[in-house]
């Protein structure tokens, strides 16, 4: 069985003036379907860099990432776009919705980019918005929604193209404590219901109870809590 995500011996360095700084050293892990994984660590520890590499937004210096068994290593920009569109669902720190689309159209857009047919798009968007509790706010624009509601739309959008892997980059950074717990439990609920793999980068230790496994960034290495 192919795993949603395999990360193999990743190294990443950034150039700083004339010297190189190691950001990630020999990162190596796998995630199975239905697993909700957290990555925690202090600011600047390389969490977001790691998530960018897994999300085919950034290349590695050494090592490889397999998404759904496919290597993203030697892909060009257009092929990476395809991988991000088909195989990965992104949830960002703020919802990052387009201001001129109502909730249903936000979901419709990503499915349209993926050439899904119209009927299926409509049905999926409706079902997902119902899952995240926004069935009554389908036609609301971002400026008519609260911060928590916007992030719910973003969660629904991440699942729209039925990706194997969900990547959430500090999804609660702009929310208060109650909303944070709501959103993370919602992500967990969807991950379990749809049997996806998910990685969440977070600062907030209190959210780790929702996750199946917890990794910590320490001295550029990723260490799993046992």
């Amino acid at each position, binding site marked *: 069985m192919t795993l949603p995500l395999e990360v193999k011996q990743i190294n990443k360095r950034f150039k700083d003036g004339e010297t190189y700084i190691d950001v990630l050293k020999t990162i190596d892990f796998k995630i199975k379907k239905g697993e909700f994984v957290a990555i925690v660590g202090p*600011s*600047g520890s390389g*969490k*977001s*860099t790691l*998530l*960018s590499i897994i*999300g085919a*937004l*950034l290349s590695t210096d050494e090592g490889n990432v397999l998404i759904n068994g496919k290597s993203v290593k030697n892909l060009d920009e*257009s092929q990476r*776009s*395809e991988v*991000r*569109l*088909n195989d990965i669902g*992104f949830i*960002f*720190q*703020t919802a*990052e919705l*387009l*201001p*001129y*689309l109502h909730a249903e*159209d936000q979901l419709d*857009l*990503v499915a349209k*980019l*993926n050439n899904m047919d119209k009927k299926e798009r409509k049905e999926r968007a409706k079902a997902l918005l119902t899952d995240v509790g926004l069935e009554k706010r389908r036609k609301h*624009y971002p400026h008519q929604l609260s911060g928590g509601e916007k992030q719910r739309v973003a969660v629904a*959008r991440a699942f729209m*193209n039925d990706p194997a892997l969900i990547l959430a*980059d*500090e999804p609660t*950074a702009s929310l208060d404590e109650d909303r944070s717990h709501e959103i993370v439990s919602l992500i967990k609920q969807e991950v379990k219901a749809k049997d996806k793999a998910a990685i969440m980068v977070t*600062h907030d230790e209190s959210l780790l109870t929702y996750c199946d496994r917890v990794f910590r960034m320490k001295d550029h290495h990723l260490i799993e809590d046992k």
Partner: protein
Amino acid sequence: MFHLAIKDMRFSKVKYGLIALILFLIASLVLIVSGLARGLSDDNISMLAESEATEFYVSTDSENQLDQSGFLIEDLVNDVPTEEGWQPLITHPVRFVHEGKADEKLAATMIPVDRDAKLYPGVTGGEDLTNDASLNIIVDQTMKADGVSLQDTLYDEATDLTFTVVGFTEGQTYRHTPVVYVSETVFYAEEISPNQVANTVVIFEGNDTLKASIDSILEEGEWVDKSAVIDAVPGHSSEQMSLNMMIFFLIVISVFVLAAFFYIITIQKLKQFGILKAIGAKNRFLIGSTLMQVVILSVFSLGISVLFTYSMTFILPEGMPFHFNLGTISMYSGLMFLVSILGALLSSRRIVKVDPQQAMGGAE
């Protein structure tokens, strides 16, 4: 792409409305100035432009100006019959008194013709010219704006003759005056101009033997083509050049104005483009929907400015030399369309350069 473009524009109505308004205003100005240029040009040279004559024999020292050129054509008429394909062209300036109307004088250019000759354009209203000695004239329809109608009589002080308007023709103006056609018979019988004099001799198709024989009889002249004669009509080149210069600068200005506007809009949306790229949208899609917006805007604005310019033909006073010519209008609308696409393309480089990774890790 189309729906996304439309939804964005509907959401930011004011922003896009403002660009549409500016595009509309500039395009209207371009179209109206071009209509004016065309109208002025017609007013000055349409008699020549519409003429079937292709080549003109003009005096060597006339600088191609018909009014400075002149020949005695008695020998030519006797030696080479006009049936061989040539005709004399006489432009005789007259000032008519419009009898029974205000005592202002009407300037016109009288041209004697044989009604069967190629130089005579025919009538669009009223009766046709006859070759007999009756003092009938066919006038260009621009005279209607001066209050001239069929059966009106026009008196020429210089010759003490009174002519009757029997018909109208169109597209026949020369040096900002309407052309008046009179039969050759009358013109020579009444000795309106002395002897057999012509400003120029024209032919209707290239014929080297005919040209050579005319040249050998008339002497002291040269063959020039129609465009050279048109360019030499006093005022024509300078009018057209200054108006075309205005149009040229308007178009250059609109390139910069539109490019600046589209650039600002693109810059404002760079973050959105970054997010869209991160979730899998390609450059082609993003540039495509941006260009789509420009296409929709331009088609909309240019359409309205064409309609607006067309409505100017009804608003402007009749005597105003303004001509709504579909060919010119489509040419300049097409040019304005290309200009706005060009303006938008300048900012698409910024879209390509957006790094989708910026969507990640804003907190670190």
